[in-house]
């Protein structure tokens, strides 16, 4: 099984390596992202399998060829621009031995931190939903179009939630093509490794908030990254290694928040956020809701409001037409990013499949569902006051160093948290299942994402604080000597490395 699982991961990661690296650049996070990117293509292959026909393997091969062709075509078109940027002093990999060492160290530390909690995989634990939902879906996808079509329409396949998105079952189905037959724990192995990869991408994103000059500070930042990895697995508990999809969508969505709303607003970070949020969207329906929130917010952040123009002396005004155009651009960007993520939802609804959560009215009134919902969700938010305290201190006294690192406003992260809690609570309140049973069987999983967001916020603030402590309170803490050289060239270095008491 270990060899089969390894081969399945190679089948998922290797064909998408080139286009993924072209899109988001080469970094430790990218290496962890590769299997997830393969899972994305497998999920899109499943959309085509259901919508058109054929098998997931056939469509996966077609999609891999397509994205590699697009990446090669894109690299040919952009070669001139790439030559200019890659020719920048000191930006080549070979000229940055320290950066390479830190990158390798980051990869190793994070890999160990996410590999340790995977030990229980040897127990071959399968959860209820793993048997009832995910393995059933994987077998149907593996069976080809007719098996998938009849499977999602079969009323007797109870509790299988046929509308659930296909990243994990589609990837497991590709794994079955390696074993040649259905092996139940292939699904659990794929899900657990995907969980680990998504958590690792999140941890690498937090560690990437700044670059430290000293090895001591670098080591502390790596400790924070490792702590985030272990914490994520602790929050998810047994669900992380028993074939469930909840940690995957939560960690992928949290990573999308970090790359899209916290790290500096660049095209590559936006691309990373897009991939992570799309993984979340195609993993579970809750992930789709949060992905749409992330797409909207990161579009707003990526396309800034038009600059104010002076109208009369001492006053500035914004053009209404400019504002409208900006909002249209933001909505177009968010819509374009959401397309792959919503494809599955569109296709299954065109097939007449809807989720079971809002199918019929529940027994209790809406008002009667509020109290148990609030009580159950609050149970998993005991960390909230501590993180609020850290964030308050950070916003009050560490805002300037955070700006200096060009990190996004902390408000973005808290906005995502609020959206997440409102969406989750509204689902429970307006849903149809008996509320106490529903909460007892799911709230520990639906609250993984809010907890990850809170720990992510704490981690980001620790990195900001470490930057300040390392710099001794000087200005421009994000800039070490290497950065300054890249920004200005060696001749201008002295004027950039300035400090103030």
């Amino acid at each position, binding site marked *: 099984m270990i060899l089969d699982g390894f081969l399945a991961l190679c089948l998922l990661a290797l064909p998408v390596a080139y286009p993924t690296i072209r899109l988001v650049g*080469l970094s*430790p*996070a990218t290496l962890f992202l590769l299997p997830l990117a393969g899972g994305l293509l497998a999920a899109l292959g499943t959309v085509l399998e259901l919508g058109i026909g054929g098998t997931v393997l056939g469509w996966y091969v077609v999609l891999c060829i397509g994205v590699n062709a697009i990446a090669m075509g894109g690299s040919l078109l952009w070669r001139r621009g790439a030559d200019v940027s890659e020719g920048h002093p000191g930006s080549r*990999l070979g000229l940055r031995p320290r950066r390479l060492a830190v990158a390798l160290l980051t990869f190793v530390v994070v890999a160990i931190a996410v590999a340790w*909690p995977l*030990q*229980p995989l*040897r*127990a*071959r634990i399968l959860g209820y939903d793993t*048997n*009832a939902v995910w393995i*059933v879906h994987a*077998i149907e996808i593996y*069976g080809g179009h007719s098996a998938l079509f009849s499977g999602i329409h079969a009323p*007797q*396949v109870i509790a299988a939630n046929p509308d659930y998105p296909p990243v994990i079952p589609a990837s497991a189905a590709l794994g079955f093509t390696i074993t040649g037959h259905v092996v139940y*724990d292939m699904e659990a192995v794929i899900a657990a490794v995907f969980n680990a990869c998504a958590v690792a991408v999140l941890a690498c994103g937090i*560690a*990437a908030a700044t*670059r430290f000059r000293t090895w001591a500070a670098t080591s502390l930042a*790596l400790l924070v990254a490792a*702590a985030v990895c*272990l*914490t994520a*697995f602790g*929050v998810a508990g*047994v669900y992380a*290694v028993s074939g469930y999809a909840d940690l995957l969508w939560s960690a992928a969505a949290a990573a999308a928040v970090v790359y899209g709303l916290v790290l*500096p*607003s*660049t095209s590559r*970070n936006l691309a990373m956020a897009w991939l992570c949020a799309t993984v979340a969207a195609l993993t579970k329906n809750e992930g789709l809701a949060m992905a749409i929130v992330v797409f909207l917010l990161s579009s707003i*952040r990526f396309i*800034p*409001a038009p600059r104010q123009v002076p109208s009369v002396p001492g006053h500035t005004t914004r053009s209404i037409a400019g504002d409208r155009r900006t909002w249209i651009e933001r909505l177009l960007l968010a819509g374009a990013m959401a397309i792959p993520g919503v494809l599955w939802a569109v296709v299954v609804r065109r097939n007449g499949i809807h989720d079971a959560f809002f199918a019929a009215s529940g027994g209790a009134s809406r008002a009667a569902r509020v109290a148990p919902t609030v009580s159950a969700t609050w149970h998993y938010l005991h*960390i909230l006051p*501590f993180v609020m*305290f*850290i964030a308050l*201190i*950070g916003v009050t*006294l*560490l805002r*300037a*160093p955070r*700006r*200096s690192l060009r990190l*996004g*406003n902390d408000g*973005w992260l808290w906005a995502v948290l609020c959206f997440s809690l409102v969406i989750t609570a509204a689902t429970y309140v307006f849903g149809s299942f008996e509320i106490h049973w529903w909460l007892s069987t799911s709230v520990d999983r639906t609250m993984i994402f809010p907890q990850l967001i809170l*720990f992510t916020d704490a981690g980001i603030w*620790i990195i900001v*604080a*470490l930057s300040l*402590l390392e710099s001794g*309170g000087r200005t421009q803490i994000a800039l070490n000597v290497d*950065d300054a050289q*890249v*920004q200005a060239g060696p001749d201008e270095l002295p004027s950039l490395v300035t400090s103030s008491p």
Partner: protein
Amino acid sequence: MPQDVTSLGGFHSAGSDEAQDGDLDEPATRFGAKPRHARFAAALIVVLGGVACFVPAVVHSLQTTAALNSSKNVRASTNAYRQVSCYRTTMQRTVPKGAKVYLGPLSGNEQLLVEASVTWADVVIEPTEAQFVVSLAPGPGECEGIRLVVSRRS
């Protein structure tokens, strides 16, 4: 001026493709007028507060992993896995592919029988439509103490 946005663990230089932050964000500026010792104290509090958040969470994580990885749990889970896998193998051996089956008396394990039969047998809701009735029963058998009982309907 293009700024390097590579960071801890970054191999690459993202160069000139940056955009300004949106509505919530403000452009990077030099530090404000906060006294240096206040910033230092705040940074220390944030680090210590963060450590206080993470340490119990990490300890809980390590304990969870140890519990799941204990030999007792591994033994129990492995047996359960063998049992569940056995249902599908037995189904494929005893029921012809494509046969109509009715999942008989169930006791909360219906998902395991559905899983065992999906894409192999055609599960029907009405017993009268079925060629075979499949159910689970305790007792000596090949599936770790549970038997998959398959009976042909006359």
